[in-house]
């Protein structure tokens, strides 16, 4: 009999012993205190070591206490939860400290003057100057790169998902994969070799081309995933109404996935905005304002940061400017991410009443 294997239990067996709600916090506090104690006693200098000891104590402690009180199965559940928390903290701590140190150092010289003036003839060692020329250059180069890469990328993805069959689409997928792996310096060298062939001087648009090469595969990949998420039933519903395929794609498939596609493009813009290597090779950098991306060297934010930092010897005016520019760059990228989220939420298919 199968019922024989079930051990008879008294009333209320569905409610086993539970640790109180506050127990994870208590265990966390206890393991931190213990870790500090061990650190002091053992003479460990690195706070990182203290943190790691606390993390290990927290996971082990949770498991031990939960096993003792709640039993094995709940203990496994709790150990998974505590591991996720530890991993989350490990990921957040570097991010938070990065943002913190950038804000702390960057705010020193970041003001309206800094954002609206170029370096001009200000020497690296002198205070003053600004990043207007670099912001302008970054916006133009990234903007042009997006104008090139986003349409090509989206159209490629549409081809691959909606039309692609057989050899050609396999070949395209392969090349997109290969392109994803191109190091940014190689993309820069590729454009540079073309420039040298035609005996051209550095200019902003050359940088845009290299950035477009880097951006395109990211756009293709993210758009592809978004298009695949559109249920086939919607395409069939539209086709069965006698709507031609291209109109179905334009009016049904794209509107359904536009939020995700835009998010993907925004994130890929954020990614190329920080690229330094190709810009260094192709755009060169310029202390003066050059609003024309098609002629003459331009500045750009990541390049400005690199050059200021390289010339600063670790302190002084150039050092401060490098951090302020970094803060601007991070703020810009975060803004893009926020805009992307906003668009995704705004354009998401509505389900409510």
């Amino acid at each position, binding site marked *: 009999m199968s019922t024989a294997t079930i051990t008879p239990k008294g009333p209320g067996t569905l409610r086993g012993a539970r640790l109180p709600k506050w127990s994870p916090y208590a265990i966390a506090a206890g393991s931190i205190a213990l870790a500090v104690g061990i650190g002091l006693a053992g003479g460990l200098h690195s706070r990182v070591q203290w943190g790691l000891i606390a993390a290990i104590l927290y996971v082990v402690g949770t498991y031990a206490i939960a096993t003792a009180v709640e039993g094995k199965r709940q203990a496994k559940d709790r150990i998974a939860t505590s591991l996720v928390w530890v991993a989350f903290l490990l990921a957040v701590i570097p991010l938070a400290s990065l943002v913190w140190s950038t804000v702390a150092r960057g705010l020193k010289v970041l003001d309206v003057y800094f954002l609206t003036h170029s370096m001009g003839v200000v020497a690296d060692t002198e205070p003053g100057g600004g990043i207007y020329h670099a912001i302008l250059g970054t916006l133009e180069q990234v903007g042009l790169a997006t104008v090139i890469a986003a349409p090509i990328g989206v159209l490629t993805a549409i081809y691959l998902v909606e039309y692609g069959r057989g050899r050609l689409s396999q070949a395209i997928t392969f090349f997109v994969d290969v392109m994803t792996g191109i190091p940014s310096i190689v993309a820069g060298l590729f454009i540079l070799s073309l420039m040298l062939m035609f005996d051209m001087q550095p200019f902003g648009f050359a940088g845009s081309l290299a950035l477009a090469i880097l951006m395109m595969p990211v756009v293709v990949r993210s758009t592809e995933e978004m298009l695949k998420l559109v249920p086939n039933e919607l395409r*069939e519903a539209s*086709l*069965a109404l*006698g*709507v031609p395929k291209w109109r179905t794609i334009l009016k049904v498939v794209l509107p*359904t996935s536009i939020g995700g596609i835009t998010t993907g493009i925004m994130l890929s813009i954020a990614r190329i905005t920080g690229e330094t290597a190709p810009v260094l090779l192709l755009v060169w950098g310029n202390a003066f304002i050059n609003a024309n991306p098609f002629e003459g060297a331009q500045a750009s934010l990541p390049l400005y940061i690199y050059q200021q930092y390289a010339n600063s010897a670790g302190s002084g005016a150039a050092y401060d400017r490098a951090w302020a520019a970094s803060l601007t760059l991070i703020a810009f990228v975060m803004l893009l991410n926020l805009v992307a989220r906003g668009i995704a939420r705004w354009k998401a298919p509505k*389900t409510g*009443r």
Partner: protein
Amino acid sequence: MAKRIDVSGLTAYYGSHKAIEDISMTVEPRSVTAFIGPSGCGKSTFLRTLNRMHEVTSGGRVEGKVLLDDEDLYGAGIDPVSVRREVGMVFQRPNPFPTMSIFDNVAAGLRLNGNYKKSELSDIVERSLKGANLWNEVKDRLNKPGSGLSGGQQQRLCIARAIAVEPNVLLMDEPCSALDPISTLAIEDLIGELKERFTIVIVTHNMQQAARVSDRTAFFNLAAVGQPGKLVEIDDTERIFSNPSVQATEDYISGRFG
């Protein structure tokens, strides 16, 4: 409006897999024809060959003839897009367009085809929603998203969307399989009304439903798993359910098979 469908020698493939073989039948205009048969015998496949939706699936291929009145749907130079405007379809799972409002869903076929007069649009939408027995439930929220309706309402929305383009034939693939008895009844009543204007083909696993709504019934079966499905017989519904001419049909209807 309603047109006769004449199928002869129709065989459909998925890649190299032959799903249905050598099917011939006539579907009368202004009538309801029900397809019944065990799962996997190719009812949906056959239904989708009737408006050239079969070739939308990758590897989908069809041999044979489907005459709509006197025009071969698979003849040379026939545009599948215009075929689908004449032969509409309602799917098993309700699939309203999630980005569109209720109004836009019904108007979708006309808008996306681009052949309509602006002034007529709201009339057509109202007429179609009334035709699908949905008007009273949604008339106050035409601008709300269509996916916010209940399953049964969504299915009727899809029917309204399909009849808004005034097709000659309406194909329905298990339109009630996800619905409660009340919505099912509403849709069955609707089918009874729609057959005044359209030729209707409905796939169903519900014998009572087939008996209730259809004038003629076709029974499909397959010899064995992996074999292509075949049409066993098609006859007046009354005859199929009282005195079918093939033993297999009687076994299937009365629940004795295998």
